[in-house]
C-alpha cells in the first residue's frame, strides 16, 4: 500500500475515533455536558491522539530502519569476489536496487507477469534488454548473484511493507479501542490531551538539538574514516592541495585556509568601514526622509541570495577588475580572484555590519551623548570619542560575526574566487577556499570510501569548528557588553 494511503487510513481512523469518543462521552453524561469533566471535544481529541500519534511514530521509525535492515540482509547474498571485481559494494547494491525496481515496474506495466518476474533467470532471459524496453537503463548485464540479491530484496521489501502496513493499522485500531473504552464522563480528558500536546511541543523543540547532533555526528564519523586513510598531521599542516583520484593526493588544509582568510580579510576591509559609517550616519546625522529611503535600500542587500552576488562577481565585478586593474597593472589576467570575491562578499556584508552596529550605537545611553554635547563637543567628536569607545565591544562582536559569515560563505567564492589552491599574496590571483573545495569534492559522482571525497567532511568539520568558535566568542562579547548599560 503506498505511503500516502497508510497515512490517510490512520487519519481516517483517528477522525472516526474523534466522533465516536465525543459521542460516547456525551451519552455517558446523559446528554448533559455540564456533568462532563472536560469539554466534549477533548474526549474526541483524546481518542484521535491515542489512535494517530503512536501509529505515525511507528511508521516513521519503521521507514528509517527498514532500508538499513534489508541492506544488511541482501549484502550477505553477494559473494566477496563480486565485490572485489567491481571494487565497491555500494555500486553493486545500487545495481541490485535498480534491477529490483525495474522488475517491479515491469510488473506494473504488464511487461512481465507476477510469475515471470519471480522465476526470471539471467541464464535464459536478457534482463537488461527486458528492462530497457520499459525504460530502466542498466549499466551492465545482470549476473546471477545480483539477480538473486534483487529477488531477495524484492521479497524482503514486500514483506516489510506488508508488515509495516499491518503494524501501523493495528496499532491505530488498538489505540482507538483503548481510548474509546476509557472514555467516560469522569475521565479527565483535558488533562490527558494537554499532557500529550505538551510532549509534542517538547519533541518539536528537541529537533534543534537533534540537528546539531546530526551535523556533528555525520561529520565526525566520516572525518575519523578520513584520518584512517590520510594522516591528520599532513592534513592540518600540508601546504599543497593536489587531489588525484588515482591515489597519492596531497590534501593540505593550509592553502585553502589561507585563501579563505585572505578573502574574508578583504571582505571585512570593504564591509566594516562602509557598514560602520553608514550606521553612524543613519543613526546620528540622517534626517527622517533620508533614513526612510537609505535604510531599506541597504537592507535590501541583505535579502539578496548569495547566488545573485556570485553571478554579479562572475559577469560584472570580475571582468571589470581584470580589465581596469589587474591587466594594466600587470597583476594577472584572471577575472576570478581574491579581490573579486572579497569585494562582492564585502558588499553582501554591508547590511549585516550596519544593522548590527546600528543596534549597538542605539544602545549607548542618550545621557552619554548629552554629557558630551554639554561640554561643547561637536557631533563627530561625540561619535569618535564617546559613542564608539562605549560601543567598541559590541562592534568587535559584530565584526567577528561578519567574519564568521564570510568564512562560511560558499556561492560567491565558488563563482568568484577560482579553484586554484595557491599560497600567494597577490590579491588579483585566483585562490580557493575551504567551502569551494567542499563543493568541489562532493558534487558529481563520488566514491565515499576514497580520501579525496572524505576530505570534504574533514574540511566541513574544520569550517564548523571555526565558525562556531567565532560565533560563541562574538555572542559572549556582545552579551557582556549589553549588560553594562542594562
Amino acid at each position, binding site marked *: 500500500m503506498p505511503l500516502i494511503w497508510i497515512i490517510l487510513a490512520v487519519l481516517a481512523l483517528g477522525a472516526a475515533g474523534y466522533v465516536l469518543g465525543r459521542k460516547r462521552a456525551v451519552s455517558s453524561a446523559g446528554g448533559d455536558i455540564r456533568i462532563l469533566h472536560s469539554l466534549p471535544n477533548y474526549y474526541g481529541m483524546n481518542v484521535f491522539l491515542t489512535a494517530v500519534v503512536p501509529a505515525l511514530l511507528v511508521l516513521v521509525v519503521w521507514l528509517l530502519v527498514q532500508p538499513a535492515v534489508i541492506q544488511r540482509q541482501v549484502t550477505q547474498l553477494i559473494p566477496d569476489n563480486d565485490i572485489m571485481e567491481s571494487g565497491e559494494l555500494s555500486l553493486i547494491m545500487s545495481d541490485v536496487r535498480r534491477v529490483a525496481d525495474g522488475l517491479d515496474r515491469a510488473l506494473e506495466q504488464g511487461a512481465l507477469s507476477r510469475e515471470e518476474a519471480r522465476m526470471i533467470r539471467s541464464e535464459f532471459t536478457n534482463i537488461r534488454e527486458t528492462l530497457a524496453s520499459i525504460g530502466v537503463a542498466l549499466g551492465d548485464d545482470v549476473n546471477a548473484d545480483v539477480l538473486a540479491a534483487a529477488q531477495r530484496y524484492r521479497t524482503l521489501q514486500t514483506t516489510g511493507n506488508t508488515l509495516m502496513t499491518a503494524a501501523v493499522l493495528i496499532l491505530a485500531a488498538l489505540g482507538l479501542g483503548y481510548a474509546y473504552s476509557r472514555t467516560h464522563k469522569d475521565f479527565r480528558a483535558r488533562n490527558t490531551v494537554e499532557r500529550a500536546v505538551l510532549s509534542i*511541543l517538547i519533541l518539536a*523543540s528537541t529537533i534543534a538539538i537533534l540537528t546539531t547532533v546530526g551535523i556533528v555526528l555525520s561529520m565526525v564519523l566520516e572525518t575519523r574514516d578520513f584520518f584512517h586513510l590520510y594522516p591528520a598531521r599532513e592534513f592540518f599542516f600540508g601546504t599543497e592541495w593536489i587531489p588525484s583520484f588515482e591515489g597519492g593526493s596531497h590534501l593540505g588544509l593550509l592553502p585553502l585556509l589561507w585563501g579563505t582568510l585572505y578573502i574574508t580579510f578583504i571582505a571585512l576591509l570593504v564591509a566594516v568601514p562602509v557598514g560602520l559609517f553608514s550606521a553612524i550616519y543613519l543613526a546620528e546625522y540622517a534626517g527622517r526622509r533620508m533614513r526612510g529611503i537609505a535604510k531599506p535600500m541597504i537592507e535590501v542587500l541583505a535579502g539578496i541570495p548569495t547566488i545573485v552576488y*556570485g553571478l554579479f562577481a562572475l559577469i560584472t565585478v570580475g571582468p571589470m577588475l581584470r580589465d581596469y586593474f589587474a591587466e594594466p597593472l600587470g597583476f594577472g589576467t584572471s577575472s576570478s580572484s581574491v579581490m573579486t570575491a572579497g569585494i562582492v562578499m564585502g558588499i553582501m556584508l554591508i547590511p549585516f555590519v550596519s544593522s548590527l552596529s546600528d543596534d549597538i550605537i542605539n544602545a549607548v545611553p542618550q545621557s552619554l551623548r548629552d554629557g558630551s554635547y554639554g561640554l561643547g563637543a561637536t557631533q563627530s567628536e561625540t561619535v569618535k570619542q564617546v559613542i564608539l569607545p562605549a560601543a567598541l565591544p559590541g562592534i568587535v562582536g559584530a565584526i567577528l560575526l561578519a567574519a564568521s559569515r564570510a568564512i562560511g560563505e560558499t556561492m560567491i567564492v565558488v563563482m568568484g574566487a577560482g579553484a586554484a589552491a595557491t599560497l600567494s599574496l597577490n590579491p588579483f590571483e585566483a585562490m580557493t577556499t575551504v567551502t569551494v573545495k567542499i563543493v568541489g569534492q562532493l558534487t558529481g559522482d563520488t566514491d565515499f570510501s576514497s580520501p579525496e571525497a572524505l576530505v570534504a567532511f574533514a574540511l566541513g568539520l574544520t569550517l564548523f569548528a571555526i565558525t562556531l568558535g567565532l560565533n560563541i566568542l562574538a555572542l559572549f562579547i556582545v552579551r557582556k557588553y549589553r549588560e553594562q548599560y542594562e
Partner: protein
Amino acid sequence: MTDASTPVPPKSSLYATSDRVKRRNRSETRFRAYGFAAITVGVLALILLVISIVSNGASAFRQTYITIPVELTEARLDPAGNRDPAEMARVTTFGYAPLLAQALQQHLQGQGISMEGVTPRDLMAMISQEAPAQVRALVLANPEIVGQTVTMEMLAGGRIDGYFKGRVTLESAERDSNVSPAQLLLAERMAEAGLIETRFNWAFITGPDASDQRPEAAGLGIAILGSFYMMIVVLVLALPIGVAASIYLEEFAPQNRFTDAIEVNISNLAAVPSIVFGILGLAIFINFAGLPQSAPIVGGLVLTLMTLPTIIIATRASLRAVPPSIRDAALGLGASKMQSVFHHVLPLAAPGILTGTIIGLAQALGETAPLLLIGMVAFVREFPDAPPEGFFDPTSALPVQVYNWTQRSDPAFVERASGATIVLLVFLLFMNAMAVILRRRFERRW
C-alpha cells in the same frame, strides 16, 4: 607671586571663528561626508547589481523564431504509410533535420532571398538543434499531418538569436567559429522578409533545461517546479515544528539545563554556514536513510532545518509581544494554560508568525550551497510527477539552475543565468512584499 610670563590669551572674538574651531568644523564636515559616502557606496552597489543583472538578463525573456512552411514528406517520416505513432517513432531527429534544411532552402529561393556565402550546411546551423525535435514531437502527436505542408515556427540558433539581441555582432562573428558574418547578413535579410521575428519567450519560464549545445531552448520550468515543491515541504514541516518549539520555549519551558541547551542550539544553528547543512543532508538523508539524490524531499528537509531557527526566532518575538494581560484574563476566566495559549495568545501572534515564515521561506528559496551537495546540479529534462510521488523525482531548483548555467561554456548561457536570476528576484520581491503588507495590515501594537 605672579609670573610675568603667563601667556596672554590670544585675541579672540565671538564674531570671528578661531583656527581651532575652523579645524574642528572642517573635521565635522569631513566626518559627515565619510558617512554620506558610505551610504552612497552601499546604495550604488545595490543599483549596480540590479542594473548588471537586468541588462544581462532581460533579453532572456525574448527569443528569435524562424517561421517557414515545411513539407512533411511521407516517404521520410512514415515509410510504412500507416500513421502508426509507434512505428513513426523509429524515425529519429536525424531523419527530420534534412527536411527542415530542404524546406528552408526552398523557401528562401522561392522568396528570392539570396544565400550568397552560406552553404546548405551553414543554413542548417542557423536553426536550433532543438527544432527537429520540436517538429518530431508535433508529428508524433498528430500523425495525420504527415504529407501536408505545415507552417512551422522554429527556434533560431543561439548565435542568430544573439545577433538580434545585440550580443553577437558582425565583428565578433569573424572570430567565432560557430557563426559567419554571411549567416548574420542572411538572417538580416530573412528578418526583412518577415521570416525571422523576436518575441516574448514563454518557453523560458515553462520549458525544461536543454543541453550545453542549445542555449536557445533552455528553460526554467523544472527548476521553478522543483523550488516550488521544496517550498511546500519546508512550509509543511518548518511552520508546525517551529511554532510548536517556540510555544514550548516561550510559554511552558522551565528554566533548566535542557531548555538552555535548546536555546544555545537554536542561536548556533542560525549562524552555521549553509554548506554544513548540505553535508548533513548528504550524510544523513542520502547516504544513511537512502533517500534519492536531487529529490525535492531531500532539499526540502535540508532547507527545513535551515529555516527552523528563523521561524523560531520570529515566532518567539511575536509571542513575547502579546501582552501578559491577555494570558491573565484567560486564566482568570478559568482557561487552562494550554487553552490560554492556543485560544488567545497564538491567534494574536499569528500575523507575526506568518511574516516570519514568509521571510524564512524567501531565504530558503534563494539558498544554493546545500542543494549542490545533495545532487540538485544534475541535468534534468523530465518534469517531476505531481506530489506526493513528485517529491521523490529528480528536479532542479531555481538558484541551482542559475549556478548550473554559469558553468556552461556557451556565452548565451550568461543571458539565461541572468534571466533566471531575474525570475528568482521577482519571486523574492513578491514574498517580501507580502510579508511587509501582512505586517502593516495585521500587526497590532499594544
